[in-house]
Every structure is written in C-alpha cells, then in structure tokens.
C-alpha cells in the first residue's frame, strides 16, 4: 500500500509493500514513485493510470500491469488507485493498493492445464471404451450370424443387445455434462437400436417411449437401460407369436427421488407358469431392480402384460386414505408429446 501526492511522490509506504517488493520503507518515502527500485515503477501504463486517477474518475479498480524488477521474473500486479477526498484541496493524495498475483495466476494456469489434461485422458478412455464395446458387439453378432442353432442365435443377439444398451449409454455420456443422462433420449436410442436389430422393417410391432423430461445418474441409467432391453426383448420373444401385430410401450416417470419404469405390451399375455420364469433375462431384471432398491410388479393387461419397476425412496402424502394405505409413488404423467418409434418409419 502506498500513499502518493499529486506529483506521484511517495508519502507513506506499508510494511507489506516493503516486504513484497524488497525495498526499505525509508528508501521509498520521500522519493518519486518512478525512482523506486531500479526504475521498474516508471512503467508508462502505471503512470497513465495514476494520472487518470488524479484528473479523472478518482478511482481505478483492478487494473493489471506487468512489472519487470531488475534480475527477477516479471510480476503480475493488480493495482487499485483512489484519489482521497478531504478538505485540503491544494494537496491531492492518492492511495494505491498493489497486489502481486503472479503466483496465484501461475497456480490457476497449472490447475487449468491439469484440468485440460484430465479432459484429454477422459476422452481417450471413452474412445477406448467405445472401441472395446464395438469389438465385443461385433464378435457376438458375428457368432450369431454363423451359428446354426436358433436358440443360440437368439441368446447371442440378446447378449449383443445388452452390450449395445451399455454402448448407447456411453455415447450419451460422452456428450453429457455432470454424468447425467437424459432419460428420454437414452430410452429412445435404446429402442431405436432394438427395433432395427430385432424388429426390422416390418410394421407388425411398434415400439414407443413415453415419459417426461428428466435426467438420471449414469449408474442408475445403466441399470435402467439393461432392464428396458431385457423387458423389450422378452416381450418381442413371447408376446406376439405367429406374426401377431402389436405395440410395446416403454413408460417412465420421475417424482423427486421416486421413479417408475414400465414396459407394457398388448400381446397374448403371460402364461401363469411364465411369471415364475427364471431365465437369464428375468434374473437380470430382478437382480438389477434389487440393486436399485426397486420392486418388480408383473400385471396382466387386457390384453397383454405390464412389468413395472418401482423405486420409492420417499412415500408421497396425497390424502388421508392414501397415507393409511401402502405408500405409493405417483404414476408417471402421460407425455404431452408422445415420441414413438415404429419400425416402419
């Protein structure tokens, strides 16, 4: 901190100024600012700033200059200068505060560089993950193409779709911020992919995604995506035998921390024994739902089947009757704009 007169002579200097710039207070006081040190305080831009403070707006804030002390690195300084107002109009005084931000700026630069390097590494990891998933998916599908067994082919294609479910998430995560995934975009991408590979160009079965806007953590969305994949594959496999036409809807809704995911079809309905099925797909759905602290409910429809996965973290209070009953989350609100997918499209 320096106190200057109208001719920019130093009237007083703080100890901190003396320590920061390596000069005794006595060596500064009474001398022109331009003569301090080895002349580095003679910088034209600094004097222009102070001249402006003397005659202009009386206050200059956060003006940055570079100072080149003799034999030392360039220092980055932030200058605050203020003309003091008091009754002695004949003697102008300027209070000048000088902050040396060289080290702080270097630290910020180092942090920015580290951040940038991390981003490059993250991109490289994502690229490698994408490449690895592509290879795994290719091997599975190639094996499915070559096998003579229908059952093996179905299993390999199901495995391929599971990999592609994870791949769709990776694709969305690579462009998302904060590790969150837009649910509608994710489920739509999944269903597009399943439609292309399992339904083909026939218009026998349509696959639609219905739900509100909302985003999900990457970890949760990975499990939800795999559940959707399993349930849709299951519906395609069992609900529409003999070329039966129909529709599969993937519905979801969020309310605070609670959510519900439902895959509904209008097919032939589940046989009583089938609800106890313990195939790989069913096991995966139950295991993932359990991991998400969610329940699995299978309900017959007229016609078809609806499988709902519900996660209730907070019991919502609606009215007294409902409070007394089993806590339930609100059903998913119907989408105002149904974004459907028909394989024919």
């Amino acid at each position, binding site marked *: 901190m320096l106190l200057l007169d109208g001719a920019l002579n130093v009237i007083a200097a703080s100890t901190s100024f003396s320590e920061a710039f390596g000069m005794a207070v006595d060596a500064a006081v009474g001398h022109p600012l331009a003569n301090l040190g080895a002349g580095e305080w003679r910088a034209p831009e600094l004097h222009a700033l102070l001249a402006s403070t003397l005659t202009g707006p009386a206050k200059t804030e956060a003006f940055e200059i570079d100072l080149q002390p003799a034999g030392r690195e360039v220092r980055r300084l932030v200058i605050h200068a203020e003309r003091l107002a008091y009754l002695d109009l004949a003697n102008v005084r300027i209070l000048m505060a000088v902050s040396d931000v060289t080290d702080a700026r270097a630290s910020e630069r180092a942090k920015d560089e580290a951040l940038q390097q991390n981003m490059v590494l993250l991109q490289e990891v994502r690229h490698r993950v994408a490449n690895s998933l*592509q290879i795994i998916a290719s091997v599975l599908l190639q094996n499915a193409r070559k096998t003579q067994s229908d059952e093996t082919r179905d299993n390999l294609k199901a495995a391929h779709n599971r990999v592609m479910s994870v791949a769709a998430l990776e694709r969305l995560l690579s462009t998302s911020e904060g590790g969150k995934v837009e649910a509608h975009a994710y489920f739509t991408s999944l269903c*597009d992919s399943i439609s292309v590979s399992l339904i083909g*160009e026939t218009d026998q079965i349509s696959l639609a995604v219905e739900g509100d806007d909302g985003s999900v953590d990457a970890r949760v969305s990975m499990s939800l995506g795999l559940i959707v994949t399993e349930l849709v594959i299951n519906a395609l496999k069992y609900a529409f035998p003999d070329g039966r036409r129909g529709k599969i809807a993937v519905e979801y809704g969020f309310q605070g921390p609670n959510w519900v995911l439902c895959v509904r079809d209008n097919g032939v309905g589940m046989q009583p024994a089938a609800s106890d099925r313990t195939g790989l797909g069913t096991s995966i759905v139950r295991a993932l739902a359990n991991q998400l602290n969610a329940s699995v409910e299978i309900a017959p429809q007229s016609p078809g089947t609806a499988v709902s996965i519900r996660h209730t973290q907070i019991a919502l209070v609606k009215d007294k009757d409902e409070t007394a009953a089993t806590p339930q989350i609100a059903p998913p609100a119907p989408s105002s704009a149904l974004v459907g997918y028909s394989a024919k499209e």
Partner: protein
Amino acid sequence: MSAPPADQARKTLMIVEDEVLVAILLRDELADAGYNVLDLTDRKVEAVAVAKESKPDLALVNIRLAGHDDGIELAQHLKTLGIPVLLISGQVSRARSAQTVAIGSLPKPYDAADMVVAVAYLLARLQGDHSLPKPSGLEVFEDGFDLAPAA
C-alpha cells in the same frame, strides 16, 4: 435388416478399419444388405490404391488406422478422388472437426444394423433423395455433403 432400395443394390462400398473383427462384421452385414464391399483395408496407402482402382460410392473410414495412419488425412485424400467418406470412429470430437472432408459420422459403439441404415440414407442423399428419415446416431455434415459428388 434394412436392404437398400433396388437402384442402390450394387453400390460399391469401401471399409477402412484397423479393428479386423469390427471390419469383418461390417463387411458381412453390408454385403448381406446387397452392397458390393471391396477388400478390407486398414492403412492409408492401401486404401487410396483400392479407391483409385475401384472408385467406391462411399468409403467407411475409422479415424485411427493401422501404422498410426490417420483416417481424417485419408478422408481428405479420398475427397480429392471424388469419393465421399462416412467416419466410423469413437473419436467424436475429431470426427466433428472433419466436417468439410466427410459427409457424416456414425460414432462407435454403433450397431451394425444401424450402419446399414446409415449407409442407405447417405447414398440416397448423395443421389439427391431426401425422402429417407435420418437415422438416429448419424451425424450428417452438410458442408462435406455439399461438396461431395453424386454417388
């Protein structure tokens, strides 16, 4: 699986991909869909030689190639030969930086069936047919498209 329209049935494609398992599956899927797929290549020099000899209607090019070759450099070269390029790489940001040399990008990991649909869409676009819906996941680079020759 989406078969190409009849007038595109014998369009010729070239795949330049350093992951052989990925390349083989792509070749088989596209061949099954009715395309003539040239011998697989994974390096720039080989790819340019094949392209000059066979003049494919569309080249599917990965950005990372064998021998540290770069797919975007190859795309620039193919563009001078009048061959449109679809980038098929997981390096999304690099692919986007090549919007003037490629006509699109379908980033890894993609489904092989999606690739067949994307190829049909791009070949139709090259012929001025805008009737097909743009496949999800496919990024179309209009700048590259405007400069690409008709397939």
